[in-house]
């Protein structure tokens, strides 16, 4: 089934390519001279036919493209395969700057994307010519310029709305991510910092390093951190989920008064900025914090409990404190959903003599799991990347000599990535870890998503 799908996708892509090329060719052969000139001077045809706005936009994009390539792009693109060869040197007292690998990589990528974009614009230009010519041949009038512009408030309104957001996402997310994926295949680290030093392509060496289990390799540490990341995400998601559900049911129970008060108390955790509450809790459980202080004052313990310095204890503490953070969210969500469960389901169960535990097991839980399946998944992937809780509480500590790359026992992949970027400037390994995070998230999402009952069986509970 999926093989078939893949094949047909590939086939349809091929046929689309062929169609495109055929249209480009036939438009050139059959087109008039205005269309033919348009192949070299973009927008020439539309301009001659009175489509001033389109014509100017097309020709302007061509001029901008060539200015960019001549003055900027070509220079970087030509060095892209080596990332620069001229090292920065000291001549006497002066520093003579050579190539800057960082800029070459970044602007090289940008230039490749811009070239691709220009090809798309060129293709659009040909299509536009074709459409105009056909319309004129059939004696249909072309739309006026004013109408073309006002279409951006009507049938082309999506372009108006999406241009700016897409541009922002491109510059601040797409470009940086492509850049970092490329960095994973270079030796860009503390010893190869531009502009003083060059860095260059090294192929798969960093990935080999990640999976090498020698004393210098990242292998052992990577496995430790990865397992803890998965364990943490599992517990953080499901403990919170069930306890949150329990608390919500407790508050919703018949005969419990002051429902609003209980909810408000819990919701306080969401309202107060996390850095305030979590930093305070971190201090509370410190060696000199009030918890240890009181326990010692009461004589229950003689030396402080190493909440944050013992690896196992620190991990448990994080999961426990995350319950404090997580329950209120779940409580809010569950409260809304619990009210949606049809009351007659319970009614008939009661008549059949079910006790409340059975009712929970047979009605409430299946319903909740069914409805919140996708939410649990996002919650899980969110927890895989839950930076704030870990970083504010332990910063990944306690550290150990057994772990490479300054990792600690409570580090998640993302906090490790962050530390590698900011503290060690080990960009190449940070990039590799980033790719790993992506793979883990993608695999978990895909596998779980296809297992979800609400995806398999959309009608199930309706």
């Amino acid at each position, binding site marked *: 089934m999926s093989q078939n799908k893949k094949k047909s996708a590939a086939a349809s892509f091929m046929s689309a390519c062929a169609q495109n090329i055929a249209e480009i060719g036939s438009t050139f052969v059959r087109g008039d001279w205005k269309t033919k000139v348009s192949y070299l001077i973009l927008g020439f045809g539309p301009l001659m036919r009175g489509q001033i706005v389109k014509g100017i936009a097309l020709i302007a994009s061509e001029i901008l493209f060539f200015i960019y390539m001549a003055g900027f792009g070509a220079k970087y693109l030509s060095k892209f395969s080596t990332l620069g060869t001229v090292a920065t040197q000291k001549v006497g007292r002066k520093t003579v700057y050579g190539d800057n690998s960082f800029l070459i990589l970044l602007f090289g990528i940008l230039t490749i994307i811009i070239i691709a974009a220009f090809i798309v614009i060129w293709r659009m230009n040909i299509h536009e010519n074709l459409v105009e010519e056909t319309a004129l041949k059939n004696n249909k009038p072309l739309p006026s310029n004013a109408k073309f512009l006002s279409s951006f408030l009507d049938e082309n309104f999506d372009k108006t709305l999406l241009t700016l957001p897409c541009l922002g*996402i491109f510059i*601040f997310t797409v470009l940086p991510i492509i850049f970092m994926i490329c960095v994973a295949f270079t030796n860009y680290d503390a010893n190869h910092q531009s502009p003083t030093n060059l860095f260059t392509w090294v192929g798969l060496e960093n990935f080999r390093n990640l999976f090498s289990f020698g004393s210098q390799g990242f292998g052992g540490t990577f496995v430790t951190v990865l397992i803890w990341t998965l364990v943490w995400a599992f517990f953080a998601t499901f403990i919170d989920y069930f306890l949150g559900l329990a608390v919500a049911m407790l508050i919703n129970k018949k*005969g419990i008064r002051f429902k609003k008060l209980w909810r408000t108390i819990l*919701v306080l955790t969401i309202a107060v900025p996390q*850095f305030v509450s979590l930093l305070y809790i971190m201090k509370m459980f410190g060696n000199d914090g009030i918890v240890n202080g009181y326990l010692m004052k009461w004589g229950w313990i003689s030396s402080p409990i190493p909440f944050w310095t013992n690896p196992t204890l620190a991990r448990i503490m994080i999961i426990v404190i995350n319950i404090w953070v997580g329950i209120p969210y779940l409580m809010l969500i569950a409260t809304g959903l619990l009210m949606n469960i049809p009351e007659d389901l319970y009614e008939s169960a009661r008549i059949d003599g079910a006790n409340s535990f059975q009712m929970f097991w047979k009605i409430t839980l299946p319903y909740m799991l069914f409805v919140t399946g996708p939410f649990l998944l996002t919650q899980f992937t969110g927890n895989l*990347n839950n930076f704030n809780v870990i970083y504010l509480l332990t910063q990944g500590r306690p550290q150990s000599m057994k772990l490479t790359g300054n990792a600690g026992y409570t580090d998640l992949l993302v906090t490790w990535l962050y530390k590698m970027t*900011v503290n060690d400037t080990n960009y190449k390994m940070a990039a590799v870890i980033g790719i790993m995070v992506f793979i883990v998230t*993608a695999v978990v999402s895909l596998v779980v998503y296809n297992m979800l009952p609400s995806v398999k069986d959309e009608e199930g509970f309706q």
Partner: protein
Amino acid sequence: MKEKNYASMSRRRTIGNIISYIILILISIIWLFPFYGLIMQSFRSYSSEYGGMVDYIIPKRFSLDNYRFLFSGETNFLRWYKNTVIIAIVVAILQTIIVLCVSYALSRMRFKLRKFLMNFWLILGMFPGFLTMICMYFLLKQFGLTQAGAVPGLILVYIASCGMGYYVCKGYFDTIPKALDEAAKIDGATRAQIFFQMILPLSKPIVIYTALVAFMAPWCDYIFASYVAFGNDKTYNVAVAMTRWVWTNDYQGYFTRFCAGGILVAIPVTILFMCLQKYYVEGVTGGSVKG
């Protein structure tokens, strides 16, 4: 017989309720304790008592020293506060506009690249956010938007990619019947008019939800704020500044000052959140069901 049964049932219910109340009270104590400790410690004077960590909660003498310190001008606290408020307000406004635009386009309009865009953004979202940090820092630096220019720089960082967070808002738009659009289109309204005059007025809850979430996020952001403002004290936001107090200076009495500062930060945000709680609940519940 029947009466007895009834009595035992009602007794059982009473006992059940009492247990529930006990559990709820315990939960409340656990949930409130950190805030109680925070408030109490903020009143501990760093001049007459030790300003670091102590083993008691209620200060021996209540004083406003810490609050006085924050407003005295010895630190840039007011500056940090101002930075954060500016960032939060501007981000709340711009992010709401952008998210609404994206959601409307994806929910109401059908265009060629729609499916591709949604899938592409979904995949993009699986990359960890900090991966973009190095490159982003460099780009911002080109325009002078780091260190001294960190405030506009951060605003740019927050809003640049916020279009990808359209899920909840689009889910809400999807529930508004399409027939309304069709009717308006027949009456000659353009897509833009439908958006501004029909959909927006119907979307008050989701607008408030989006703005609230966008407003609260910058108050807690440590990662990007500390990276972009790196080393420039004047452009920190409260999260960065307070976190540094706790991590580096707590032995000098900065712990109690952190408590005081934290409370000043938490009060307005908490009040705002509590007032708009209704919309928040609506947003998260709706978002969670649709996934």
